């Protein structure tokens, strides 16, 4: 799983229903991705991201990003490339997603986040 996917998920427990509660990543094994840089896709994805949640997730993996992104930043190819690499080229192989509101955790195994109920 990449950080772009983390940004598109939310806690789906009954307790957090309707809250749009972002999940915190507790990373285990991380591997580098090899996806080729795509400037246009990065800019379009920026329009869909919860930027602050992304900044926080990136920080937990040791990547510092600015608190906000302006139109002018779209021309900063070094920054856009860095955002692309953090979004698409950090493969989270194991770890867990933690809901800071209800404390539910969702496992990530072999690169797959499992948000299904764990009752069987």
């Amino acid at each position: 799983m990449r950080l772009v996917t983390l940004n598109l998920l939310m806690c789906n427990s009954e307790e957090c229903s309707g809250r749009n509660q972002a999940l915190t990543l507790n990373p285990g094994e991380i591997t580098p991705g090899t996806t080729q840089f795509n400037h246009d896709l990065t800019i379009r994805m920026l329009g869909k991201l919860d930027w602050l949640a992304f900044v926080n997730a990136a920080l937990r993996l040791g990547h510092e990003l600015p608190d906000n992104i302006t139109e002018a930043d779209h021309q900063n190819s070094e920054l856009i490339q860095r955002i692309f690499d953090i979004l698409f080229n950090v493969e989270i192989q194991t770890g867990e997603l933690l809901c800071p509101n209800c404390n539910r955790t969702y496992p990530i195994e072999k690169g797959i986040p499992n948000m299904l109920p764990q009752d069987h």
Partner: protein
Amino acid sequence: MNIKEVKLSHIKKDDRKKVYPPSQDTFILIDAILNDIEYIKALNPTIVLEIGVGSGAVISSLALNLDNAFFLGFDINIDAVKLTQRTFCENRIEMADVVGIDILKGLNLRNKVDVVICNPPYVTSTREEYLECQNNRDISSSCPGGENGREFIDELLRVVDGILSENGVLYLLYEEENGQFGGINLLTERTGCEGLCVIRRNKNNQTK
């Protein structure tokens, strides 16, 4: 135009016991979507989501023929999720992730998804059988669709209208006897199969 075909030879007998395998309806949906590829390219989609990926054949077929998008696959059967990851890998599809998740339990995708694809459970069954099979979260979840085979589809349409972006579209396969869901029918007599329909439907079923 040069259409790339998905490789599925890695799907073995054991997988077919646990995951809805590529079947006639799968290939009808793939053909309908790839016939519509110029329309999809013109949308310039950022996020493509398949709900109920099964073996991953449909989302991979689109990913192989559409650059500049990110592909997300969801399924409630964790074996289907794992198989789809292998299908991505076998087809060297990198711009894609797959998640074990129940779409009816909430998604952080409001107005974000540009293309949604779904081959839903559409076979007419009792409501009890539909609910029980959804709850099994295994291969049995892929067929029974409840009364008139449309209980899942009706719930899906509610979710999809919330997550589609302004110009987003849904590609949906169903059976004639499920009823009508608006949208544009993409099957011709040549591409079709008796009783099956594939539609392209705009957000909130607006006609554009």
